[in-house]
C-alpha cells in the first residue's frame, strides 16, 4: 500500500501548552482512518495540520513523499468537511458545490455535469436551486461532503461531521460515508470522539490522548488488544485490574491465578489485566474462580449489566442470565478472555466500576460534547 500522508515527529503548542507531542503517523492510499479520542486530545489539531490551517512547531508533514509544512491550504490536494458544515450562506446548493471548480475557471458545461454527479452521489438531486439555510442538518451535511469531494482530492478530512446530527440520522450517514469512501476510493481521515462510530466505519483507528498517539490498529485489534488502560477504557467497557505475571501464560489477580494466552512479560512483572464485561461467565458460587456479591442490576434490553463486588473491587459484567441484587455468585473467565497490558501512566486511573452510574456516564459525555 502506498503512503499518502506521513507525520514525522510532529509537535505543536498553543501559548506554551503542548497539544501535540511527537506524533508519528502514516496514512495510506484508499484507507478510512479515524482519529479517536476525548476532547482536547489533539485529534482536531492533527487534522488541521494536514489541512494546512495550522503549522507544525517541530517535525515534518509529507504528502506523497513531499514536505508540505509551508504549503497553504488552497495549494494542497486535500479537502475538508468542517464541523457544523461551514456552508456559504450567500450561495445556493449548486454554487456551494461548484465553489472549487469556479475558482479554477472550469468550463461551465463541465461544472454543471460535475455538480450534478456530486449531488447524485450524496442523494440531493433536485436541490440545486435551494438556499443552504433552508436545508435540514443532514442535507447540509451532504452538501458539505459534495462540496469537498468535487475536486477529487487525494484525501478528505472530516472533522466530527456527524456530531450535530441526531442518533438515527447519524447511523444512516455513517453507512453512507463508508459507501461514498468505497465508491470514490478517496482516503478519508475522520475525527470523532465517538468510539462506536470509529469502530464501525474505520479501516484503521488511531486512539489519542493528551497530545499523544496511544494506539494505531484495526478496530478489532484496538478492541481485543488494547495497549494500555486508557485505550481499554475508552473503547468499550473494561474491568482493569492490577495483576502480576507469574510466568508465560499464567497471571495472578484478585488473589487468584489464571491461565491466559499472553507471553513475553518478565517473571513477577506487575501488569494491567483487562477483562471485558461480556467475557465473564456467571456460575454457581462454589464453581467460580472468583466469588462476589451483586450490588446492582440494570436491564438494558439485550442484556443485563450487573455490578459485582469482588474483594472491594467492583466488576461490570454483561449477561443474559438474571441474577438478583445481594446474590452471591461465582465468576468464570476463559483464558483467551484475559488480556494483559504493560503498566503505563494510565494504570489505576480506569476500569473500576465502584463509582459507576449510567447517569454520571451520560453527564460526562454531554459535557465533553459541549466542549467541542
Amino acid at each position: 500500500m502506498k503512503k499518502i500522508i506521513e507525520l514525522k515527529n510532529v509537535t505543536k503548542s498553543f501559548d506554551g501548552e503542548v497539544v501535540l507531542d511527537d506524533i508519528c503517523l502514516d496514512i495510506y492510499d484508499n484507507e478510512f482512518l479515524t482519529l479517536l479520542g476525548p476532547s482536547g486530545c489533539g485529534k482536531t489539531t492533527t487534522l488541521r495540520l494536514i489541512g494546512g490551517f495550522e503549522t507544525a512547531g517541530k517535525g515534518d508533514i509529507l504528502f506523497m513523499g513531499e514536505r508540505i509544512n509551508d504549503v497553504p491550504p488552497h495549494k494542497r490536494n486535500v479537502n475538508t468537511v468542517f464541523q457544523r458544515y461551514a456552508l456559504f450562506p450567500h450561495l445556493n446548493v449548486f454554487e456551494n458545490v461548484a465553489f472549487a471548480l469556479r475558482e479554477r475557471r472550469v468550463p461551465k458545461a463541465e461544472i454543471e455535469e460535475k455538480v450534478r454527479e456530486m449531488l447524485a452521489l450524496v442523494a440531493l438531486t433536485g436541490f440545486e436551486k435551494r438556499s443552504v439555510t433552508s436545508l435540514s442538518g443532514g442535507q447540509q451535511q451532504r452538501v458539505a461532503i459534495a462540496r469537498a469531494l468535487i475536486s477529487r482530492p487525494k484525501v478528505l478530512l472530516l472533522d466530527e461531521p456527524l456530531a450535530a446530527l441526531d442518533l438515527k440520522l447519524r447511523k444512516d450517514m455513517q453507512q453512507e460515508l463508508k459507501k461514498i469512501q468505497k465508491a470514490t476510493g478517496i482516503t478519508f481521515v475522520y475525527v470523532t470522539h465517538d468510539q462506536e462510530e470509529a469502530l464501525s466505519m474505520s479501516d484503521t483507528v488511531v486512539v489519542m490522548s493528551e497530545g499523544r498517539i496511544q494506539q494505531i490498529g484495526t478496530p478489532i485489534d484496538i478492541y481485543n488488544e488494547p495497549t494500555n488502560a486508557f485505550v481499554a477504557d475508552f473503547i468499550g467497557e473494561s474491568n482493569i485490574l492490577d495483576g502480576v505475571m507469574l510466568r508465560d501464560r499464567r497471571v495472578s489477580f484478585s488473589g487468584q491465578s489464571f491461565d491466559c494466552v499472553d507471553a513475553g512479560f518478565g517473571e513477577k512483572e506487575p501488569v494491567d489485566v483487562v477483562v471485558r464485561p461480556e467475557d465473564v461467565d456467571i456460575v454457581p458460587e462454589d464453581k467460580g474462580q472468583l466469588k462476589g456479591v451483586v450490588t446492582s442490576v440494570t436491564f438494558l434490553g439485550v442484556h443485563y449489566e450487573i455490578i459485582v463486588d469482588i474483594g472491594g473491587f467492583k466488576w461490570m459484567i454483561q449477561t443474559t442470565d438474571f441474577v438478583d441484587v445481594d446474590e452471591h455468585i461465582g465468576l468464570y473467565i476463559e483464558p483467551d478472555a484475559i488480556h494483559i497490558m504493560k503498566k503505563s501512566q494510565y494504570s489505576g486511573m480506569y476500569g473500576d466500576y465502584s463509582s459507576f452510574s449510567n447517569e454520571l456516564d451520560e453527564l460526562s459525555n454531554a459535557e465533553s460534547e459541549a466542549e467541542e
Partner: protein
Amino acid sequence: MKRRGLSGGLPLAPYSLWALLFILVPLLFVAYYAFTDNSFHFTLENITRFFTATSNVAGDDGVTREVYTYLLIFGRSLKLAVISTVICLLMGYPAAYIIARAPARTQRVMITLIMIPMWMNFLIRTYAWMTILQDTGILNGILGLLHLGQVHIIGTESAVVIGMVYDYFPYMILPIYSVMAKMDVKLLEAARDLGCGSFSVLRRVIFPLSLPGVVSGIIMVLIPSISTFYISQKLGNGKFYLIGDAIESQYSANNLHFAAAMAFILMVVLLVCMAFMQRFADRRAAV
C-alpha cells in the same frame, strides 16, 4: 395569533406612540407645508419653484450664465455627499476588516478610539477643522516647519469633503465592522480549503457576506452628508451652498412652505435611493 397580539402589541405601545408623535406627525406636517401656500391653500408652486427657479451665476471663466438655482445646489450636495461616502467606504472597509480580525482586546480599543470623536459636539469638531485647515492654520504651520510649501484648502470643496468624511466616518466603519466581526472564521477556512487565495477569499466570501453592512454604512453616511449645512458654511467659507444650507436659510427667512417643499423632495429622493439599495442587497443575499 392571540398570544402574539398580547405579547407583541402591548410592549410595543410606548414605542408606537413615540413613533407616531415624533416621527410620523412631523413628517406629515412637512408634507402639509410643502403643498400649501402662506394661507394654507393647496398649491404645487413650492415644488415647481424647486425645479424651475433660475438665477445668474458667474462661472470660473467669468462668464455669467443662467442656471436652475436649486437643481444646481442639489446636484452639488449630491456630488459632495457621494464623494464623501466613497472615501468613507474606501477607508472604512479595510479598516473594519483589519479591526474585526484583530485580537478581542485590540478590537475594543480600536472601536473606542473610533467612537471618541462622536462624544464631542459636532460644532466643536468642525471649528477644530477650521483651525487645522486655515491658510495660517496648524496644517500649514507643520508644512512650513518642514519646508514643504503651503496649501490652500479652506474654502474649497476638498475642505468640505474632509469635514464630512471626518464627521461621518464612524457611521461607515461601525456597521461594516459589526457584520465582519460576526462572520464565521470557518467560512474563510472553507474557502481557502476549496482553493481560494487571499484575494479570492475576500472577493468571493468576505465581500458578499459583508454587503448588508456596506449598504447600511453607505445609507448612514450618504443621508447626513447630503443634508448637512454647517460644515459647508464653516469649511467652505460659505462658497458651496448646499441643499441643507438652502433649507436652513429659507427657514431662517420664515419661508416655511418652500423650506418644507425642499425637505420633502430631498426625503423622497433619499427614500427612493434607499429602497433601491436595500433591494440590491436583498437580492445579493438571496442568491
